[in-house]
């Protein structure tokens, strides 16, 4: 397992640690990977939340005046904030679906045999991958029309739909990189043997290469989904009602300083509870699909 420098027998360095070695470049390009989870961290998060609520409650009691306790206020607002949170999840699913389809197409265009198609799709991918998500979101919110007219038919584009498109753009670019990397990770011999068996390029791609890639692309794709879910809170910045907006509205309505920390912690822990299992599953799949050698 020890890497040897060419020309010497001396051990230089071990191969990079699991996290760096496990994934091919393209998946690491996301830089957001998840490993080493313990259910213990889940318990400690809950403990932190309970502690925050208790402290806030104690603060409220110390203040004297008979007021609603922090717990009842939280319970009162929880259903509304949760609805907003569900909207976040809905947006994440839609943006992921849209981004995945567009990204798959863009990724396949990157391995096209035509140089101009390859070049153009590479530029598009790099551009959308390196632009900040929030800027892309602003871009779509402001520059897409509020309705489009096709053949005399008026299709309204509500704000939330524009936001979905705005989130789908960076997802598209990242999915394109995952697809390209996945295809790259298949040994060249697979292409050659398919060619020897008289498969056409399209047949090779669909029947030999892509089925093998799919397995390898799943973990980084799920990772991307978790990132997207966390990014959906950005839509509150451009004025769409989501979990974050409702939480802030609740805080404004109550005008209670001690409610701030529990409220935000509640929202944070919902996201944690949603993203954490995804991250765990990603890790498991990654280990299972790991390519040796």
């Amino acid at each position, binding site marked *: 397992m020890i*890497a040897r*420098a060419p*020309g*010497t027998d001396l*051990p*230089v*360095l*071990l*191969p*990079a*640690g*699991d*996290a*760096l070695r496990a994934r091919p470049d393209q998946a*690491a*390009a*996301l*830089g*957001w*990977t*998840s490993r*080493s989870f*313990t259910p213990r*961290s889940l318990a400690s*998060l809950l403990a932190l939340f309970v502690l925050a609520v208790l402290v806030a409650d104690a603060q409220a009691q110390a203040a004297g005046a008979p007021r609603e306790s922090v717990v009842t206020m939280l319970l009162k607002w929880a259903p509304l904030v949760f609805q907003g949170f569900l909207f976040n999840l809905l947006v994440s699913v839609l943006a992921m679906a849209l981004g995945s389809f567009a990204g798959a197409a863009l990724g396949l265009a990157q391995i096209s045999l035509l140089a101009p198609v390859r070049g153009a799709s590479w530029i598009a991918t790099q551009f959308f991958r*390196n*632009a*900040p*998500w*929030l*800027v892309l979101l*602003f*871009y779509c919110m*402001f*520059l897409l029309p509020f309705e489009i007219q096709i053949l005399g038919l008026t299709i309204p584009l509500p704000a939330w739909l524009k936001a979905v498109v705005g989130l789908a753009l960076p997802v598209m670019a990242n999915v394109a990189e995952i697809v390209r990397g996945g295809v790259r990770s298949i040994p060249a011999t697979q292409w050659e043997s398919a060619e020897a068996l008289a498969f056409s390029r399209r047949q090779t791609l669909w029947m030999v290469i892509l089925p093998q890639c799919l397995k390898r692309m799943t973990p980084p794709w799920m990772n991307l989904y*978790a990132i997207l*879910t*966390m*990014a*959906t*809170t*950005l839509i*509150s*910045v451009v004025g769409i009602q989501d979990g*974050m907006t409702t939480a*802030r509205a609740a*805080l404004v309505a109550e005008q209670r*300083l001690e409610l*701030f*920390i529990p409220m*935000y*912690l509640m*929202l*944070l*822990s919902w*996201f*944690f509870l949603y*993203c*954490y299992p995804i*991250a765990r599953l990603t890790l498991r799949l990654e280990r299972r699909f790991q390519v040796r050698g």
Partner: protein
Amino acid sequence: MSAIEAFFQRLGTAPGWNFSIVYDAFDRARFLEGLVTTILLSLTCLVLSIIIGIVGAWLQGSTLRVTRRIVQGYIQFFRNTPPLVQLFFFYFAIGSILPRSLNSSGQMEPMISNLGWAIVSFSFFAGAFNVEIFRSGIQAVPRTTVEAAEALGYSRLGIYVHVVLPLAFRICLPALNNNLVNLVKTTTLAYAIAVPELLYAAAQIWSEVFNVREMMNVLLVTYVAIVAVLVWAMGRWERAMRIPGYST
């Protein structure tokens, strides 16, 4: 200079492309100020997050179980929650319980400004990723090298600073690059708490001059350029720090 300004002013009237940041001194100053703020914010968070990463990775190798668990909890919490909510949590929730003080002009001033909270929030966010990155680099350093250093009488800290870290740093540079690029992109979130960075400055300009389309494109190109410069610089650094004979 004035010829360029005149050209852009003509562009504003003839095809209607209003790049006010080129010919209008006020808008230009605002935009450049935003650019400087973004760069400063990025650099500060970059340095702090690397420090957090190094210290965190060192603590994770601690012999105390409690320390390891706390670091692990920190990493998982910051990786699996939205950075925007983290920022709001710091700015509104933690910021509200900190004491306020009178400033020189007699107004109440929070202890940490919004720029300060942005720096704190993003540093912790990127730092959580850096801890993992540095740790996987440290794992790649052969046990025998550490043992050799121990035999030479190095302390645990000495081994970490003089032997393990220089080697580990070179291994994890590629992963670190990706995270730092992400960090630069994350700084746009500071817009939400009114830190006058690039996005905020651009939004101010387009809401006054009504040149949303032009400013949007300028903004996108500027961010892509910042990221490109960062990637280029880190790429050069990576090549300069390459260990001869070790390549992946």
